[in-house]
């Protein structure tokens, strides 16, 4: 019985944790500051995205480079010459893709 209770409460905890993670939406935005691309990430509850991995992908979706958001949840990189996209990757359900052609000055 006790085991069952522990199990139930751990299920409940998992559920709660999962819920908490669901309650915030990832946010990601990039702009072209004259050749250099600046991206910033965050979460709708205001929590920091520092350390979140950002994939720089080519036109075929292959990784050119993996980057990390700095302590201000920002990253800057040189604009690739050919077609590219940027992916904010905070795990399952928390990924955002931004196409290079949508990144404006």
């Amino acid at each position: 019985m006790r085991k069952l209770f522990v199990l139930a409460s751990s299920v409940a905890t998992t559920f709660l944790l999962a819920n908490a993670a669901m309650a915030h939406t990832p946010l990601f935005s990039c702009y072209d500051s004259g050749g250099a691309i600046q991206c910033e990430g965050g979460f709708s509850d205001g929590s920091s995205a520092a350390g979140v991995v950002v994939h720089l992908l080519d036109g075929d979706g292959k990784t050119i480079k993996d980057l990390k958001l700095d302590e201000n949840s920002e990253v800057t990189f040189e604009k690739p010459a050919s077609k590219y996209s940027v992916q904010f990757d905070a795990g399952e359900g928390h990924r955002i893709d931004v196409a290079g052609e949508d990144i404006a000055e």
Partner: protein
Amino acid sequence: MIRIVIAAALVLTMSAPAWAHFQMIYTPEAAMTDGGEVDLKLVFTHPFEAGHTMDMAKPQQFFMVQKGKKTNLMDKLKEITWTSLTNSGAAYEAKVAVRKMGDYTFCLVPEPYLEKEENAYIQQITKVVLNNKGLPTGWDAPVGLPAEIVPLDKPYALWTGNVFRGVVLRDGKPVPNVEMEVEYINHPPIPGKNAFQKKALATAPQDAFVTMGIKADANGQFSFGIPKAGWWGFCALGAGAADKLNGKELSQDAVIWVQAKDMK
């Protein structure tokens, strides 16, 4: 004869409109989806009636706070003439580029205005919080103004019918039981023009609905259910500590603007 004059004078005094002065910082959109150039209009007026617009002197301070960083915007100010439904007055505008995600708190400390009819000064320290792309970065943080309304609900993310709450602060401490005025921008400015639109969005059944009176509670907190989409201004009267200027009375007020949107 004297009696008639007195009676007439009394009637005149009593029927003088109780509309409130409101320092506006107006921009069409509080919740931006893609940044850009924010066009801010600084107008000292009577928003519900789009009535008499007072001449603003050059403000003492105009700045924005983003992620805790303060940016002076005094050099962005440009003098304009604002046209109300009854007159025109000196006002200011500023165009500010917004690119980064997050909250942008714009603060205005105007030069005190001498209201000759009351022989007293009014200084409305005004705040508006805009947001770009939904990332919250400090909408709830006090800026540290001498008189300030700190929101308890995101002032740019309100549906019509939501309750807006705030706390009135004097030098960072709550002001208990402070008297407040609430007014609606009933004649929204015409896009691209420095003027109010003629058409009213709502009709007040009586003067008490033009400038609504509410009070903060013992903790300086107030709440207000928003009945209609658009911009709403909240003003805490005499919230600041300064109460005298040049030997005259000074009302140092705190103002905040919030925008509500219909669910559709």
